[in-house]
């Protein structure tokens, strides 16, 4: 069922014109991040030294990465979303900035400084590989992804080493991060396949159908067992929430959410009483001052940093994140709070919200139910992880020890996030309108940017100006602008 795209109807020039909003957003991102890098000058975490060319290298790298992304998208005549690219570009640029500021880009640890370019490559490969509806092939063999997930976990259990209460592969790489991808693909595929059956609830007391549900439940039991063996409660939480959300989204049955909440309550209770690890964290959350120099030390140090950051922050590069343990990964949000203040935190949260809203929007407009489920699943994973991280750092909820997507240091987490973004973008190309031949609705051509810019192509129709992006007769959802060409 290959969707009837007409990619070759679009020439390069049109593709370039079509993506001007993205270009503009990426330019603003570059400007913001460059300003951020300039701020960190002279505040090298290694000591007092004069700025060297090397310190501005990451900024250059970032600008080049954005250019590479943009040019690739244009070259591929990608018709998908542009806003998501902008929001994500800002967030991972911000992450790069924060890690550079913490000295994490030049030191080892996982993939070190290579994680970022590698991540961009992963994003583009995923996107190009799965665009034009090719992502649908992922739905072909759901159980393959399930098997892969369990295999990953089993290998890690055998080869892994313990560190900070969790299990890690050699080199502190966390292959379980990949589960976020493989399992969402599996769930989307499975639920897509059994949509009808899963949606048929019977009985006087509404109960979900056991037939299509038991393989899923059995698999989840094994998965949960393996994850809890590795003390990876946070990951299990994210995946379970995504399972429930996808069941509800795929079938339109709110009942799945209800049963999910009940199951989560019971399971959470069980987990807390099985693991001292979890219990300690719960206590540290309920009463952080019961053991301020022990269990709550890290979270209180993070909050102290945030308090000294206040509303405006101490300025990027001016804080003392070295007093917060694991500042570069789990507690990076505390560093943002310290250096850019509550205002900086609010801006980051708003951009995350835009990312989630856009992700959901893409899912909502997908042609296929598989695309819908995949989009909702991936967004749900990212949103949950973000909430658990931010909530933990601000003592809103107990600490789960998760990284902040796109921003935290950590190669595996970053690569997975980039791959997920690539997939969501691939889905975004897949909407009803994309199947229509001819000029596509969202593609209002690039308006005149000013006298300094090159003149628009000759013979083109009246173009929308920047002030009035909606010219008469060129409603974005209505008919396409008369691109006489």
């Amino acid at each position: 069922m290959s969707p009837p795209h007409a990619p070759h109807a679009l020439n390069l020039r049109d593709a370039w014109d079509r993506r001007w909003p993205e270009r503009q957003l990426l330019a603003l991102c570059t400007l913001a991040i460059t300003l951020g890098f300039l701020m960190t000058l002279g505040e090298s975490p290694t000591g007092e030294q004069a700025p060297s060319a090397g310190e501005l290298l990451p900024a250059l790298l970032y600008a080049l990465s954005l250019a590479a992304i943009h040019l690739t998208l244009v070259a591929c005549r990608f018709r998908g979303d542009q806003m998501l690219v902008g929001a994500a570009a800002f967030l991972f640029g911000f992450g790069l900035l924060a890690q550079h500021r913490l000295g994490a880009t030049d030191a080892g640890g996982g993939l070190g400084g290579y994680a970022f370019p590698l991540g961009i490559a992963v994003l583009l490969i995923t996107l190009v590989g799965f665009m034009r509806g090719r992502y649908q092939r992922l739905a072909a063999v759901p159980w393959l992804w399930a098997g892969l997930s369990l295999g990953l976990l089993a290998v890690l259990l055998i080869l892994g080493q313990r560190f900070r209460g969790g299990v890690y592969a050699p080199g502190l790489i966390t292959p379980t991060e990949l589960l976020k991808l493989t399992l969402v693909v599996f769930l989307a595929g499975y639920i897509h396949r059994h949509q009808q059956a899963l949606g048929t609830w019977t009985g006087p007391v509404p109960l979900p159908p056991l037939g299509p549900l038991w393989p899923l439940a059995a698999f989840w039991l094994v998965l949960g067992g393996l994850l809890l063996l590795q003390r990876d409660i946070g990951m299990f939480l994210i995946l379970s929430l995504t399972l429930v959300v996808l069941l509800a989204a795929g079938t339109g049955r709110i009942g799945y959410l209800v049963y999910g909440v009940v199951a989560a309550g019971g399971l959470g209770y069980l987990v807390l009483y099985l693991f001292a690890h979890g219990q300690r964290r719960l206590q540290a959350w309920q009463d952080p001052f019961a053991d301020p120099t022990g269990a709550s030390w890290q979270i209180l140090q993070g909050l102290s940093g945030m308090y000294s950051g206040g509303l405006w922050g101490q300025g990027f590069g001016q804080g003392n994140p070295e007093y917060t343990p694991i500042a570069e990964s789990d507690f990076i949000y505390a560093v943002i709070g310290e250096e850019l203040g509550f205002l900086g935190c609010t801006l980051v949260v708003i951009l995350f919200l835009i990312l989630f809203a856009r992700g959901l929007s893409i899912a909502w407009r997908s042609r296929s139910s598989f695309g819908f489920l995949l989009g909702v699943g991936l967004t749900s994973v990212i949103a949950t992880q973000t909430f658990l991280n931010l909530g933990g750092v601000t003592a809103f909820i107990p600490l789960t020890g998760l990284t902040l997507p796109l921003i935290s240091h950590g190669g595996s987490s970053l690569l997975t996030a980039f791959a997920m973004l690539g997939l969501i973008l691939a889905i975004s190309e897949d909407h009803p309108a994309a199947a229509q031949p001819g000029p596509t609705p969202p593609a209002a051509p690039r308006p005149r940017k000013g006298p300094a810019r090159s003149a628009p192509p000759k013979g083109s129709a009246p173009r929308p100006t920047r002030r009035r992006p909606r010219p008469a007769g060129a409603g974005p959802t209505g008919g396409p602008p008369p691109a006489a060409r």
Partner: protein
Amino acid sequence: MPSTHPLEVLNALVGSDAWPILRLGLQVGFFLVVVLLLKRMLDLRPLTRLPQPSRPDRVYRGLVVFLAVLFAALLLHQASWQLTGVLRPEFVNFMQLHDRRQFNPAHRLQRGRILDHRGTVLAESQEALGRAYRHYPYGRAFAHVVGYQDPKFGTTGVEDAASVHLNGGAPASLRGWGELGRQILIQDPRPRGQDLVLTLDAELQQAAFELMGERRGAVVLLHPQTGALRVLLSTPAFDPNRIGPELFRGADPSTPLLNRATQGLYPPGSTFKVVLAAQALDAGFSGTLHCPAEGFTTSSRYKKIRDHEYYTAREGGGTWKGFGDLDLGTAFAKSSNVFFAQLGVRYPHDAFYRNAERFYFNRRLTLYESPYGRWSVPTGSLTALEDSDQYGLAQMSIGQGGVLATPLHLALIAAAVANQGVAMQPRLVEADPPTSLARFMPAATAARLTEMMRRVVTEGTGRTINAKQLAIAGKTGTAENAQGEAHSWFIGFAPADKPTLAMAVLVEGGGWGSRAAAPIARELALRAQARGMLQ
């Protein structure tokens, strides 16, 4: 013209004095660009809009709103730490103790001053080496009531109860909130808290501290009509300017950390006769009781309760013929144990307890209360007796055995007598409105007791403190205790006809009430008069 490498220009800039301002500009620029980015996203929304959804838009919107609310709640919670962290005294303590960030404003937090009712400073924040610390000009004299605030050793007294207020986290008015908002907005490196005015009188408290000298005990002075505490002293005290670990090792047998005025439970001895006299007066007692020299007991198995004249005479080698028949007023003035022991057992146990509970025994008093902290202290306690235990009742009737009281509670009882039977809520904060706590006794009973207590000073056990210029009324107490020498008590008020000062003085192991405690009470009453506090 020498070509300068751009990097060198940058180098020079970063090293120059202008860099902090430039950096600030960069930060403002960064924020502006991000805001611009958000605005562009909003503007470009129509242009990058995806086609109409094939699924219900309502659910999508609901989900987005749900996420937005969730994260907004998170940000709000974050603000409660990041912006209004002063609302969490434990958090401020943690930062002052454990945060090594030099620029953390918590280190330079100018906690509000604590003032007495005339504006004398009892506690203030000072700064040395980039750290704020607390200075107490009166040192030991206010150690217990004002307390101390130390990041390492915590907070006590008013410093503890009003910690949030002092840190500036509990604005009472719109202006206060405005001030807090201003400090957050300009990110004040030296946030200021709010002052707290207490009802205490620095000079009187200092005088009481000096009068107590090396002796252990407590002094409580309060205004009977408003409950305003003027003196709340406990000795021995510690120096709140020098809090160190040795203070907490518990090696000092004199327990300087204990606030004897509010926490110390002592046998009240003869001062309890005020309570019992009120019971008898309300029960309509009149007439006399025979008080023989050899004393009184409820059963031959128990030691006789005698008057102290008996022991004095015996020590001197002579004999004492006893009081003979005594009426209530005379017995009260002479503080006859034999009389009051007999009086107590004339009534059933439950009458005794009912009466004592009117006087607020077995309860708690709240000295300070706010949404962010409170300071409450226990009142005296009564042991529950078996109904058959007559001897126990006789002992409690003279303030021994199963009855214990704090100096503050006894001062409150004296204040109730002085305020026509009504006890006012004892209060420490000048701004708190006076409220009545409970009626301890009918007004007529209070009037009779006032006469009786005046007689104690004019012709009874307290006659040594009778002063020409001031009519003091009161009751002495000499409370036997198992630890050694009897505790010396005096409770009372002045002037007797129109009381404006109620007092309780305790000297641990001070012997006769008339010898140790009463002179201190007299001296303090005269000083208060000289300060014009008795008008």
